[in-house]
């Protein structure tokens, strides 16, 4: 009953490991599937060249979530292609490759090279809010850039479906999603972290993150994520990977009612452990049982008129 169809894929359940969480290596992602129970995994966002990212502290818990400015650290495409291939050899669950670029041309290049690893989906990160100082405003804050990137990634992705990952900022997630759909996107991932935000140590009287600001994730952003998914569902016909603040089954049910096909989970790993996927899958199943539904499809988008 937890099985879901997403584009051309069949997942054991609708939970997906979100990008940037435990997605650096095949071994780590395999554990998230086998021990954690995830229906699919997303890699850490990567680019052609490796990056060290920001100095630590780069990930900080606060009372209602996490603040992070990892700064898109990644080992570069060659390493990641190896890890994706290794994962595919060892594990049946679908793997989504998350890519980013500093320029529009780089998005094309990294997509072209990623195709060689044959991931099940390419997720395009145009909405990371913690690399401002280097990259300027995220591309995902502009409809024009979003259109260009969607088009160029689609052109280079061959048969591999493409999901564009959006944030709640800029011209609005619904407008952006429509632009993505018009330019050929196969799915939307919503949302990335929110912000940027800041935490200050009151004794030292300075921001704690080395980057000073970072993206907010976890319980604090659930209402923003649910509302974003709701808006995107109204605006487009392509499926949505609803992500942001999901830590318990009830949160996931909200996402599905808002219109999500898959549920992205990142920070939930911190609150519930690696088996958060298993727990959420079970809880969603119990919810369906309790209310006499036979499948997730029956409630998808159920919060809309």
């Amino acid at each position: 009953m937890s099985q879901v169809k997403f584009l051309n894929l069949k997942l054991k359940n609708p939970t997906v490991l979100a990008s940037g969480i435990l997605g650096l290596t095949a071994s780590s992602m395999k554990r998230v599937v086998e021990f954690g129970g995830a229906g699919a995994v997303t890699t850490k966002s990567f680019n052609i060249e490796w990056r060290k990212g920001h100095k630590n502290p780069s990930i900080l818990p606060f009372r209602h979530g996490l603040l992070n400015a990892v700064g898109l650290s990644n080992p570069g495409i060659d390493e990641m292609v190896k890890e994706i291939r290794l994962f595919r050899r060892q594990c049946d669950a679908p793997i989504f490759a998350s890519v980013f670029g500093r320029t529009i041309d780089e998005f094309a290049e990294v997509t072209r090279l990623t195709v060689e690893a044959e991931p099940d989906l390419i997720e395009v990160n145009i909405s990371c809010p913690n690399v401002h100082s280097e990259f300027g405003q995220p591309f995902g804050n502009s409809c024009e850039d979003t259109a260009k990137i969607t088009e160029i990634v689609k052109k280079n992705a061959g048969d591999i479906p493409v999901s564009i990952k959006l944030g709640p900022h800029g011209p609005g997630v619904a407008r952006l999603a429509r632009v993505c759909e018009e330019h050929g996107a196969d799915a939307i991932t919503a949302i990335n972290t929110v912000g940027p935000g800041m935490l200050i140590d009151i004794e030292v009287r300075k921001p704690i993150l080395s980057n000073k600001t970072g993206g907010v994730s976890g319980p604090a952003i659930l209402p923003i994520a649910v509302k974003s998914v709701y808006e995107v569902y109204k605006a487009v016909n392509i499926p949505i990977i609803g992500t942001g603040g999901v830590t318990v089954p009830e949160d996931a049910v909200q996402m599905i009612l808002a219109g999500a096909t898959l549920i992205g989970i990142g920070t939930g790993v911190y609150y519930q452990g690696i088996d958060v996927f298993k727990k959420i899958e079970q809880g969603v199943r119990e919810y369906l049982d309790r209310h006499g539904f036979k499948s997730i499809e029956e409630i998808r988008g159920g919060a809309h008129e």
Partner: protein
Amino acid sequence: MSDLMQTFPVKRIIEHGPGVKSFYFDRMTDAVAGQFVNVWLPGIDEKPYSVSALGEDWLEISVKAYGVFSGAMMKLKVGDLVGIRGPFGKGFTFRDNALIIGGGIGIAPLRILARELSERNFRFVSLLGAATAHEVIFVDDFRRRSSNCYVTTDDGTLGKKGLVTDDLLEIIKKEKIEFVYAAGPEIMFVKIKELIDPLGIAYEFCLERYMKCGIGICGQCTLDGSGIRLCVEGPVLNQDDLKAVTELGLPHRDASGRRV
């Protein structure tokens, strides 16, 4: 105990010798032997350090100068504010008739272990090695608590000249050792494992990897082969945990995630 960052003034500093110091803070948390805290030097960086001892009202970490961060630690003065969050990770289990093997600053987490074992009246033997005499930190404490304490130094300034692994098998036999704890450089683990795996003796090693979050989210510290997160399921791993690990003694990941 808190995952949230909080800052604390340095209360006291011991200098063991050039480039090796212990730092004391008000005891802000419980911790078990093998657990670590993330230490933040504002404006510089944040790195993990084992809790090396706990008193009624104090917590101790011990640091050896290697690079930028530990170098900056050496410049700390009493009263300076340092961020600390944790403790993180899974510590050692407590066993009778054990051998404690420490290499260099790896002795730090074994100091609190020795205290916990002796509080439980467990018999244990210590085997400590370092480059030179002053790096065998708190050797008197180990001598007092262990039923026997063997020391080696690379330069022969304390104990026997050589490595901890030189006489390992003889010591295990002579002291009727049933369990091995070790912390130190990775090459030492490889050697110990080679020597004791054939004996079927169970063991726990306290490993190190580059870490970012300390809370099991970023994946930076996961070990190839098993996917275990060293910051949550470690840093102490036993012989069974290590069976699936394919990267012991091999290059491992830096801040970007490349193997270097």
